[in-house]
């Protein structure tokens, strides 16, 4: 019934409403700056960005499913491909690539060469521990949790810290099947 290969995100990206890229970058930058001013601790800011991303992710997944029409992925490899090719394209306008699969197929890396969030950004010395794009890790974690996958998402490489690409490691912890929510005696 459903096609096996993930569809390209280009068609969907072309059809959704788009926002000016600079507005998006500058708005995100303003959010991070404000968080740094309010929270002062870089670790706290990282945590807060992740939480914000999580809240975005749980809603974003429904929009993604509605617009992209993908059916349930059979295995985690397919999930990672769909996120990289369709998901990132649809919402950020850039495609990621999937590499570094481990032997069990539960951990992989998403490589982003181009990231609209970090245009014009340079990290000062006082914020060297800051994961500027931590919102993305929260988004991926939140979205996957809504499709029954508990994951751990961390940054391995960060262009703002001198690396050549952004590398996001996604590790599948477990799949949570649906449980009958009502007690049996009612």
């Amino acid at each position: 019934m459903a096609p096996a290969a993930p569809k390209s995100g280009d068609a969907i990206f072309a059809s959704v409403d788009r926002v000016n890229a600079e507005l998006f970058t500058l708005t995100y930058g303003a959010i991070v700056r404000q968080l740094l001013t309010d929270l002062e601790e870089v670790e706290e800011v990282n945590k807060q960005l992740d939480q914000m991303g999580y809240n975005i992710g749980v809603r974003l997944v429904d929009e993604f499913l509605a617009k992209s029409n993908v059916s349930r992925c059979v295995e985690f490899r397919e999930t990672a491909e769909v996120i990289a090719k369709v998901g990132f394209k649809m919402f950020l306008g850039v495609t990621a690539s999937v590499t570094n699969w481990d032997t069990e197929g539960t951990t992989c890396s998403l490589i982003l060469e181009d990231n609209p969030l970090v245009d014009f950004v340079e990290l000062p010395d006082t914020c060297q521990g800051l994961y500027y794009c931590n919102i993305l890790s929260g988004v991926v974690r939140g979205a996957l949790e809504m499709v029954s996958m508990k994951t751990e998402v961390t940054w391995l490489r960060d262009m703002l810290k001198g690396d050549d690409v952004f590398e996001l490691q996604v590790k599948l912890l477990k799949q949570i099947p649906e449980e009958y929510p009502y007690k049996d005696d009612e």
Partner: protein
Amino acid sequence: MQFFGGSEISPSPPAPAASGNNAHMLYIFNRNGVCLLYREWNRPLKTLSSQQDHKLMFGLLFSLKSLTAKMDPTSVEKGNLGVPQLPGQGCSFHSFRTNTYKLSFMETPSGIKIILVTHPRTSDLRDSLKYIYNLYVEYVVKNPLYSPGTPIRYELFNKAVDQYVRGLG
């Protein structure tokens, strides 16, 4: 208000047919069994309280999904009956018909279940259910004041759904 940008990806609504409301009820559940929305247009017979009715409906679908997946003659792997499945996995039934009504069902991988009960001669409603899912995304999910997992109380969404369902043949 034009959303979807007229793309061919999301299904355009089927052309409105005869007037009058052909649908009886609509339910939207989330993965935890919370009834997010219940709309009723034409239901002369009500035997249970709303709470029991929702639980019954959710339980029915849960069991039906499990049963249809286990009885699938083309599937290679079969767990035991009663083992919980991931939403959207395996084959899923999409409608059943009796002599007085037809129940159409759609479940997304995120666990959102949409059920529409109509008169028995309705044609396949899968595209319509997808359109209602799109409406849910636009009016409810994107609303920053909505907390996911709570019942939906937005007039705008209710009106949009009513209007769409009224146009179904």
